[in-house]
């Protein structure tokens, strides 16, 4: 019986072309567009400033500074100031007068946050050149101290080290986009599920099945299994898009650092949650139009709150707290932990349990509503 019911559900979903577009094509396109569009927002490596340096000092320290700028890929040193974003002037006597300052002339089109980023990046090289100059100056005073200082690699990197909790990799736009749009796409099963459910209710096929000794529980479970399978295919395809397709557009590929078992567990748990909420909407709606409208709006709201549309880390603290109510957020956090922090199963277990609990409660509630609606008879 289960086999026949699962087959029927697959046939109905696979013949719904709009549903297939929403389930597979839409999230894949989102992943591609968002990964490429946000490529520069998620990595410092790609930030590049063009600058022209006007060296009025022509000293040892100014040459050191220029060498460092030339070696840094974040800067594009120009020979002509007309097309430069920034013009940096090294004043005369810069080396001899410790209090003298570099002057930076900024073009009008540069935004304030870019100016701050430029100043911070430039500061590293200014500091480094000045420290090296200090070492040269004290060389004659004490050979022992001079030796110790010259052995040191003087740069900003020697002063601090950036570390991420449990992380070995810095996130890139693909690693942010793929999990977000996987989660969003998985919840889009609401469209085929509700359409089929409402049609079955309207056409009385569910009541007919019930009169044929098919229990509500059997109906609920046999309807859920195909969507569980479809969701897993979605995850595989979206991961494939992140790993193989996105790099073709000069964007970093998806890297999975964590456990594949944890990834599977999160994927299944997310699917159960998506099936639960989809069933609940499908059995409560009076028409498929109503179900798809409510489902679509709910999806977008849960996605917006849950960090799909806007990454949670750039949300204000109040919004970050609010995002915790969205099951999409539980799934997204777990995926990000796996992709970015090499999380294993135990590290995502809490989120997995929350998603499963949410899904099972929603599914049971939907079966109860379905039972009541079937009781109304033909």
């Amino acid at each position, binding site marked *: *019986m289960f*086999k*026949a*019911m699962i*087959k*029927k559900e697959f*046939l*109905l979903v696979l*013949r*719904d072309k709009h549903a297939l577009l929403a389930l597979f094509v839409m999230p894949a396109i989102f992943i591609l567009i968002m990964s490429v569009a946000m490529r520069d927002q998620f990595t410092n490596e790609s930030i590049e400033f063009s600058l022209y340096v006007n060296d009025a000092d022509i000293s040892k320290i100014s040459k050191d500074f220029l060498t460092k700028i030339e070696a840094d890929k974040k800067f594009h040193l120009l020979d002509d100031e007309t097309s430069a974003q920034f013009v940096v002037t090294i004043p005369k006597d810069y080396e001899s007068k410790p209090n003298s300052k570099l002057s930076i002339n900024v073009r009008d089109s540069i935004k304030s946050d870019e100016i701050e980023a430029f100043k911070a990046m430039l500061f590293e090289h200014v500091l480094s050149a000045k420290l090296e100059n200090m070492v040269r100056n004290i060389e004659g005073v004490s050979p022992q101290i001079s030796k110790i200082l010259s052995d040191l690699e003087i740069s900003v990197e020697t002063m601090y080290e950036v570390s991420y909790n449990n992380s070995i990799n810095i996130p890139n736009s693909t690693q942010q986009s793929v999990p977000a749009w996987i989660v969003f796409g998985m919840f889009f099963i609401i469209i085929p599920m509700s359409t089929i459910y409402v*049609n*079955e209710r309207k*056409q*009385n*096929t569910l*009541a*007919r*099945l*019930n*009169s*044929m*000794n*098919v229990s509500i529980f059997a109906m609920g479970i046999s309807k859920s299994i195909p969507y569980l399978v479809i969701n897993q295919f979605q995850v595989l395809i979206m991961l494939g898009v992140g790993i193989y397709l996105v790099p073709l557009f000069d964007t970093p590929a998806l890297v999975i650092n964590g456990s594949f078992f944890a990834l599977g567990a999160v994927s299944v748990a997310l699917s159960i949650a998506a099936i639960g909420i989809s069933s609940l909407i499908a059995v409560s709606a009076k028409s498929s139009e109503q179900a798809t409208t409510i489902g679509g709006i709910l999806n977008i709201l849960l996605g917006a709150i849950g960090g799909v549309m806007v990454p949670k880390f750039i949300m204000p603290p109040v919004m970050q707290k609010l995002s915790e109510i969205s099951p999409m957020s539980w799934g997204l956090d777990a995926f990000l932990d796996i992709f970015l922090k090499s999380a294993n199963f135990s590290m995502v277990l809490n989120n997995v349990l929350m998603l499963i609990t949410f899904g099972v409660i929603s599914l049971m509630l939907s079966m109860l509503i379905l039972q009541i609606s*079937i*009781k*109304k*008879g*033909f």
Partner: protein
Amino acid sequence: MIKITNLTKSYGEKKALDNLSLEIKKGSVFGLLGVNGAGKTTLLSILNGLISQDSGSVEIFGLDMNKELKKVKSLSSIIPQHLAFYEDLSVKENLDFFAKVQNAEKESYDKSVEINSLEEILLQKASTLSGGQKRRLNIAIGLLNNPKVIYFDEPTVGIDPKSRNEILDSIKEYKNFGITVIYTSHYMNEIEKICDEVAIIDHGKLIEQNSVENLITNRSSDSVSVEVIYSEKLQELGLDMSSETTIKTKESELFATLKLCKTHKISIKQINYGSSNLEKHFLDITGAKDV
């Protein structure tokens, strides 16, 4: 035999079934008549195990519905008024699905296809079928489990006369297989044509249960219809006519009516005592203006 005893079902304040008792003979075609809201659908839903009664009992072929619901369901089948199948699946896919769900045997599968003449449209998508073909598919699904009792809930709504007659003929055939048919319809002529016995329900109560023959020739009513050969004089006499050739009168006024016909040389074909047809009888005893 199907034995319904003191069946009561209420929805809030409204009593859908009020102490209803019925007995339906095995192998008969039994008509269930009643205006909308009379309680027919509630009765069918209880007989199918979709809802349960507040009180009373139902026994189908010796099985108590309350205690052996699963067995009872496997013996019966409902043909719902609304087409209950998958429009996006083909005829064969629909039949295969409903057959597997019920573990139907190949023999009953083939019989369902044959009785309903579905052989040539098996691969056609259900949504592309004509109204009559859809009705036949709807019925075929109900026959897959080789039921001993079939409940038809208005199965001929919205189809052409040819398809209707085909369906009615196939229902009459079920008697040959020993199947008990419980049939509800708004079309009284259908009930007259195929049913052996009829129960009239009104406001959840049984008003009358009788054979179709007895109901049509019901002598409890004093109405008489006199069928005559058409004459232009009929319109001038100021008689109560139910059709161009049928005079409506009462038993007490029959002699005067016949005398009038003789005086004006109007030939008499037939005299019918009681209600002229089932519909008339139904309207008489329920007080409804229309079926």
